[in-house]
């Protein structure tokens, strides 16, 4: 059985981060886009927790908690915006959202 070390967590976190990034780029649905950003933030949380454990230092976990809190409030604000947009336009498609350009 392979021992799971710090590096594995970090690699996992990086992979998740990349998935999040790809999602951010590819998704055209606003809701899905928000999910992708959540993945981004949470991938970092994994690393923070792991590193914190590695160093035996609580700072990283503290950071992770703050990230979680912030992610939560972001979701609140983001969903609020999304709902208003949906109310006005009846869709949450990114492609529709380009009245300003140049």
């Amino acid at each position, binding site marked *: 059985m392979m021992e799971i070390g710090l590096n594995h967590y970090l690699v996992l976190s990086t992979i998740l981060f990349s998935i999040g*990034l790809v999602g*951010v*780029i590819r*998704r*055209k649905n606003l809701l899905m886009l928000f999910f992708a950003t959540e993945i981004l933030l949470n991938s970092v949380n994994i690393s923070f927790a792991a590193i914190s454990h590695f160093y035996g230092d609580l700072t990283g976990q503290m950071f992770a908690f703050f990230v979680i809190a912030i992610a939560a409030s972001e979701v609140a604000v983001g969903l609020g915006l999304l709902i208003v947009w949906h109310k006005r336009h009846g869709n949450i498609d*990114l*492609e529709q*959202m*380009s*009245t*300003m*350009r*140049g």
Partner: protein
Amino acid sequence: MELYLYIALFSPLVGSLFAALFAASPKSLIAGVVPSLLLFTSFVASTILLVNILSGGDIVHVEMMTWIATGNLYIPFGFVVDQVSITMMMVVTVVSTVVHVYSIGYMDHDKSFNRFFAWLSAFVFSMMILVMSDNFAGLFIGWEGVGLCSWGLIGFWYHKESATWAANEAFIMNRIADLGMLIGIFLVYWNTGTLQYDEAFAVMPALNSEILTWMGIFLFVGAMGKSAQFPLHTWLADAMEGPTPVSALIHAATMVTAGVYLVVRANPLYDLIPHVGLFIASLGAFVALFAASMALVNRDMKRIIAYSTLSQLGYMFVAAGLGAYWVALFHLMAHAFFKALLFLGAGNVMHAMHDELDPFKMGGLKKPLKWTFIMMTLASVALAGIYPFAGFFSKDLILEVSLIEHHYIIYSVLLFTAGLTAFYSFRLVALIFHGEERYKLFGIDPHEAYKFVLIAMSPLLILAIIAGSFKMTYFEMVTAVLPATQYHVHSVVTYWIMTIGTQLFVLLAIAFAYKKYANNRITVPNGTSKMENRLCYKILSNQYYIPYVYEEYISKPYRELSEVFWKHVDMKVVDASVDGIANIIYSTGEKTRTMQSGNLSTMLKWMVAGTVALLSLAVVFGLAVRYSDEIKLIFSGLGVQ
């Protein structure tokens, strides 16, 4: 004496300003009379100065005020009345007084009568500055001043295209020469440290001859322009578009001789550089012949006289170039009198003929224009150099000079030219006054000029006849400042053979002219006669095609080049490159603004792309740092330091 100097100098200016006051108002006689009187005053003052000089008085030298003073340069308004300048002053005041009075009659019907006198007096003032200045800068003031007035007077009838064209031509041609003059002045200043004649000439013997040569050449270039020497001669004939008194005063008696005056004035310089002097003499001889040849076939009365002037200027330069400065000056004076007379006579004829200039259309005018006929004939005799008229003394002297100095080619050219001179002068006289009255074909009824006009001309007539007798007095006077070389042919026999031979030659030429042109068979040429179709006739009547060449190969290319410079170089290259830079910046903005598509997805992609790009750069850099030793090794293996 200073007072007289100022009177002589400034009376014309006052006259000019007085007339200018009336410039915009209709003709008033007073605008002509007052300047004439003031000129007469100037003449009187000059005469007093002359008497003073003749009676052994001091040279009058005044410094009125500072003009330009900066650095080491100090240029005052300084005036000097010495033997040379008093000669010129006398010539100028005499001729111009006569011409002024004459003009009152001649310009009688012209609506710009007042303006004419303003210009004419201004010209005299400039000429006085030119001859009286005691430094090169002052000379240059006068030099440009006469150029300006000449411009105004040639183009006096500015409604005529040809007149304004000729005015501009004269001005620009003179400007070309003035540049040479200016450079000459610069040379004088930087090598002698001053522009005062006496101080500069005092230093010159110490300078090396190369510098002196350049000085001499550049100053002479200036003289060439004013005196219309080849190749800057074309303006003089064209300048005949101006009113005839102008031609008499400016383009015969005074301004065109300024070049000769300059050479005479700078005699200490030219004495140091005889090779330049020889060049001047040779050019003079060439111009004498060249101009005379063009006069042979010309069909414009005034142009014939103008070419004759040109030819005589050539004589003067021969004398000046050969070091016989006083001879040159003497011929200048004599020439001024008879040539002015000739022009004024021509003016009378023109008036009578309603501005007709072609002598072939006249003929038999001696009856209606009796006095004019006499005057012009005598002036022509003087010009031809028949004893005892003025021309004989002055012109023969030049021939002698060239002989004595052993310049035989110049001598023979001049001798031949003397014959030509006699021929074309009397061709003109014959065509105008003798033969059938061809003018009747054109329905003209000629009248003699006003009495007072004729009386005004009489002093010139007298001087043209007797000026030769002043020779010795004159010699005594000017040689106080000029090299006093007496020119005597050593053997008496040679002298007599030469003199009589010349006289005979000239008389023959006159007789030939009379025979050919004083008969009743002369008709107005219409371009069909055999002679007119000869090549040499065509060359001569087209002035050797020089004006054509100037127009085709200088003026036109200049005009075209200017257009090219403006439309293609300035607009399409210089300006367009500036605008081009601006446009590149602008269009880059225009093209790349599509990056901002407004699409959120694209915007996110840009952000990620930026990060990825930075990341890859970081990786490259990180690797480079990590393997820096290896990289250095590879590079050194490749020979990179």
